[in-house]
């Protein structure tokens, strides 16, 4: 039997997303963010992470959410990608989820098309769906499809899976 995959789960809007635990360096409260003039919109700015200046991406903006409410539960998930540290602002970071590999489905073809290709897989965890993110795709410049579309496609995808 394969070992369970450990995933850091966090919420953006009403959906749960996940990243492999190996990519996540830490989760911190949202500190003061210094905005950088002329940077792309979804870049909130930079933060001081114990002497290191790292950029912060607001995933909520990245997924096209219009209204963003700051809350005390907001967190920054600091990820390490190709030796770059990048902060991702999320609504709340929930927990470390363990999912057996068999419970993670490859993304439905809907996800592989166009701008939605940042979903690498959909996991099932206690009746919820956890969408696994492809970090490198998210951090590319350019627009991403709206979050609702992603959620919708995920639902369609799992529907199809159930039928088969």
């Amino acid at each position: 039997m394969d070992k369970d995959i450990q995933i850091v789960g966090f919420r953006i809007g009403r959906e749960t997303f996940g990243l492999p635990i190996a990519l996540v360096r830490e989760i911190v409260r949202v500190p003061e963010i210094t905005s950088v003039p002329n940077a792309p919109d979804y870049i909130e700015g930079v933060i001081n992470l114990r002497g290191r200046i790292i950029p912060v991406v607001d995933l909520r903006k990245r997924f096209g959410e219009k209204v963003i409410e700051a809350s005390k539960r907001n967190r920054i998930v600091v990820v390490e990608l190709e030796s770059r540290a990048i902060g991702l602002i999320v609504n709340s970071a929930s927990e470390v989820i363990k999912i057996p590999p068999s419970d993670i489905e490859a993304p439905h073809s809907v996800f592989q098309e166009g701008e939605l290709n940042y979903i690498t897989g959909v996991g099932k965890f206690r009746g919820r769906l956890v969408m696994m993110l492809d970090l490198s795709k998210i951090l590319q410049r350019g627009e991403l499809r709206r979050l609702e579309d992603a959620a919708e496609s995920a639902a369609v995808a799992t529907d199809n899976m159930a039928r088969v």
Partner: protein
Amino acid sequence: MTFSPDDRASELRDLFFESAEEILQAMNDAGLALEEHPSDKESLRSVRRAVHTLKGDSAACGYRELSELAHELEDVLTPDLVKEHAGLIAEVVLTAADTFRDMLAAYRSNLQPPDGGALREYVQRLLHQPASAGRGRPSEEATATFSWTEYERLLIAESFRRGETVYQVALHLASEAVLPAAAYELVKKALERAGKIVALRPENSGDLVSGGLLEAALASTKPADWIRKRCQVPSVVAQISVNRIPLMETEPRDVLDILVESEAAAVSASVAGQSADPGEIEEEDEAHLSSAPTGLAHAVAENTLRVDAGRIDTVMNLVGELIIGKSMLQRTIAEFERRFAKDALRGKFSDALAFQSRILNELQKSVMKIRMVPVEQLFRRFPRVVRDVAKHLNKEIALEIAGQNTDLDKSILDALAEPLAHLIRNAADHGIETASERAAAGKPVNGTVRLDAYHEGDQVVIEVSDNGRGIDREKVIRRAIERGLMSATDTSRMNESEINHLIFTPGFSTAENVTEISGRGVGLDVVKSALDNLKGSIEIETESGKGTTFRLIVPLTLASIQALLFHVAGRLYAVPISSVVEITRITEAEVHRVDDHEVFQLRQQVLTLVRLERLESTEKFERSKRVFVVVIGAGGRRFGLAVDRLMGEEELVIKALEDQLVTSPLVSGASILGDGTIVLILNIPAVVSHLARIPAVGATA
């Protein structure tokens, strides 16, 4: 620590490229000296040393083409031959330096090196013009000497390394053999059939005489007797001796060993040790001894370390972190003192902090010193540049160099290499007039380009000046309008300095004729952008008929800057204090609009007012009645920066915003203050050009 052979080889190559740079520089220096004094023995010796070292080192790295060419060159650089062709020698040396440089560049990028045709031609000319009688290898005596040159010894050593058996073959030509050149070819063919010729002497068929001796080092798998039979060419070869060269004691050898232990010493002991021509030995020994100080062996053994600059950067970064850490500690201790004013620990804390600060200061200085190198490292390249331009244009130009001991951060120095070369070529090409023009203007026929460097506070100034014709501002304006860079109204509003700076605009070039030297489609704008990147600036001083001085002002180091901090629209920014001219206050009523720009008057000058909040340009901010204006001087221009609140001056440790997610041309870096706040350092030139494109608020109304 263990290295795989690959690591060692690539490390060796890196070492080689680095030392080759020095060798080429030495050749250039010597070449220029020889041009002045063709009979300068010391310079010639230094060239020979250089070529010799290059030959050995490149052979060890497997760069055969380079090694062979160096070998050919070394052969012709004998004092006798040089004496005969005194006029040619400097040219040969300089051409050689260029050829080698091209070849090295090709090797570096793993390309096939150019064949160095020009150099070969020179070598041939030296060889074939009636040479002195002493020329040629001593082939008249009939005893085998096997006095291989060092290069050949290296080749032999290489064969050994590959596990081949190497024989020394001595072939005496029959005295009755006619056509020795043909005999040579016959014997050579025979040798080739018997094995692989590693070295052959004489090298040219023309140098062989009837009854002479042919010596060869032959790598072969066959026994000695078989070889002897093979080489027995009837009525041509009178006598043959074949001896196996004993194996080296120093197996296993590798390229690094060959280099480090005084090159082929071990080989020469067993190969040439039999009965070598005493003169030959002496010459070789001299080469050995004198090559030591410049060769690779030297780089490995001497008490100097060559360290990858990246490692020093890492240390520098850590020191930067420590400085931030120190100010964190300072704040905490200040807080502690407020809360526990009577605590006995207070004194101990401050003592410890003072001690730590002192050490930290020392540490920062020491690390910075490691990165500092004298500007001479860069300046010494330029005599060659000036000489080439002068020669090409038939001008007489002297280069004066001063202040070469001024220290500067290595990375800054490297970044200045191109811009400086550009300015110098420009000065020699466009600045200095032709001899006849100069004579007509009543100036000395010889032009002078002067290069100077000195410290000025926290900055280093490098001056490139010429006593040429100066910048013709009328022509500059005409050209700028012609090229569509400026409108006539724009230029009418410019002051002298701004007009001078037009020459740094991309797409500008005043040369009437595009010359090979400075008109290669790259304008002086590259100079400007290089200086911008270094947070430096350029000043131009020019007087018609008297000459031009370019003053490049760069920070001493890129690691930290003294900066002025201020708030604009709730954001904290910093600008290098060196760019701040003065600070003043004005009321909103004093701000006027001219065309699309907001301007204000400062004493006699009208300055553009730049509002940083418009970088975002979306939100509107309440403006206070009175604003602080930081007057910035950049590239001959002055403008005012409207700020809300001044926060004072501080030394900032620069951290680059490397991540491409946040790179913004407007921000050249960031820093962290003691309380953890991030401050963005503005890239002044970029801010100016960016804001120039946004019309002022309300300007269209």
